[in-house]
């Protein structure tokens, strides 16, 4: 127990300066983000920033913004398409909580097939003024 406490005390002494982030350039005291961690909305902890930098995925560079937005709706559609038929019934939409499709089903289902494809959903959005 005593050696554990000693270890912890030494560790605290060693780690304390590392926790304080200091700018090396200016003469004035640089305030540390740690002191205002609770208040610094928006704030991201150092370890998260480090991980993000390592991953370094460029924002929206691969797929376009439009593709990424539609991908989200496609993902919800796939979730509703529980039997992987490529189309979704009103009941399936409701089951999955895809209210946008369930509530507008009759208008999306232009051919009155009782089921809609994701293309039907896209056509419906475009018809209502969606710009993609």
């Amino acid at each position, binding site marked *: 127990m005593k050696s554990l406490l000693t270890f912890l005390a030494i560790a605290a002494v060693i780690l304390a300066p590392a926790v304080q982030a200091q700018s090396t*350039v200016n003469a004035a005291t640089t*305030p540390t983000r740690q002191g205002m*961690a609770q208040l*610094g*909305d*928006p704030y*991201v902890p150092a370890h998260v920033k480090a991980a993000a930098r390592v991953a370094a995925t460029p924002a929206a560079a691969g797929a376009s913004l439009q593709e990424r937005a539609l991908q989200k709706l496609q993902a919800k559609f796939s979730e509703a398409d529980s039997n992987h038929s490529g189309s979704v019934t009103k009941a399936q939409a409701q089951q999955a909580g895809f209210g*946008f499709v369930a509530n507008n089903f009759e208008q999306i289902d232009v051919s009155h097939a009782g089921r809609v494809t994701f293309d039907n959903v896209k056509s419906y959005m475009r018809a209502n*003024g*969606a710009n993609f």
Partner: protein
Amino acid sequence: MSIKRKLWFGLAVSLQLCALAFAAHQAVAQEAPDAVMARPPVDQPYNDKTLYGFGAGDALAAAQVTESAAVTHDSISINGKTIRYTATAGHLTAADPKTGKPEASIFYVAYTADKQNTGKRPVTFFYNGGPGSSSVWLHLGSFSPKRIVTGDPATTQPLPFPFVDNKQSLIDTTDMVFIDAVGTGFSEAISPNTNQTFWGVDSDAAVFRDFITRYLNVNHRLESPKYLYGESYGTPRTDVLANLLEMGGTKLTGVVLQSAILNYNSNADFNGGSYGPYFPGYAAVGAYFKLVTPPPANLTTFAKQMRTFVAGIYEPAVDAFLASNTQPSPNLLNQLFFNSGYPAALWKADFNLDETTFRSNLIPGSLLGRYDGRVVAVNGSPLAADGDPSSTLITQQFTDSMNDYLPHGLKYTAVSTYNIENGDTIQDWVWTHDGLYLPDTIPDLAAAIYQNPKLKVLSENGYHDLATPFYNTELDLGRLGPISGLQITHYRGGHMIYLFDPSRLLMKGDLVRYYDSRS
């Protein structure tokens, strides 16, 4: 359950039954034939005996959860018109939309004007950010019927800050519901979830969706125009939440993004890279301290010039510097000095200038606020102690006011203390979203707009905000391309724009027009 817990639980149930009986008595009394003058409705105080836990692993047992509230009645005169309103402070249960299982008990304070046509009367959901912040800043600082007077940006307002009727309250235009995220206020997860279950970009937005759904259903507001109003981290939350609501079948009328950070990847404070987008904010702050040459006559015009300067000159130079260590020309360093008041030699030392270094060195011996660059404190003074004088200026006063207002104004007494800020949340938060380590929520906003092209999007920005600089937000929103519902406004002031009296007045005017505008 321990004996002690059983006793508390028993007491809570008894009090709840008394409250219900009292409310029923009130309902019966109000059905009696009208007198010549209607009796004013009686307040219904609530005493919350629940002990809330705000740690990552804390959760309420199902048996502890109630949907009780304190209800008070008041009125306010705005522009010569008296508005009677009801304040409701309490909890509603957010439940999983698929299974119906309770997820979290969410604390909220709602202000609803009496005798309104709910089909036309808007309801707006307000929340701050953090993540880990309660909604106290918007609640007591912006557009409620009451507000705290801070004197921002001055640091000389005598303590305690006054708590007054808010002549710029939005109660004349919309009902307002201030939501406290899980682990803040008196909001807590319900077992088997823990608070940490909801500490992530996606899980947080989902539980907000579920609370809003519950509120709309319980209060019969499904037909009302619905708005979201988020500040700071509340803005990426709004993007994710708006898409979740639209996908779920709840159609919004508009979203207000105040002091936004919609993509953490494009902000150098969080993802490294260029601080170019911060520069117009530095320039605005420099102009405020009369350090800009020549001194600009008009802030709007000056801001325009600074955007052009960054896009055409400073940003390309920073990019070259970061890519291949290309040194800036003396001419550019002088331009930077003229435009901001920050010395050329210091620009040379930190060409890709971060906001902390800027705030530390613009005024020798002093530190500027991060939220509001106009707030200045001498190094070593109490206001400078936590690194952001503009935040330190207000935090204790907001905390004290809330702790007083809850029992004495809202008549909500509690065993627990209202949790203003949760320091654990930010450390445990799950930031990943759509496969990125840090959230980019512009695609979420785009998806919401695809489903609802009439969505009215309003972005409000403070020129002097160095936490979420206005030009950074404009660049993020610019990725959306032309969308008819987008409006961007700017005001003198910092992150909490509304604390500056002239700007709160202007915001009120712009917001009334925004609410009245057709989609």
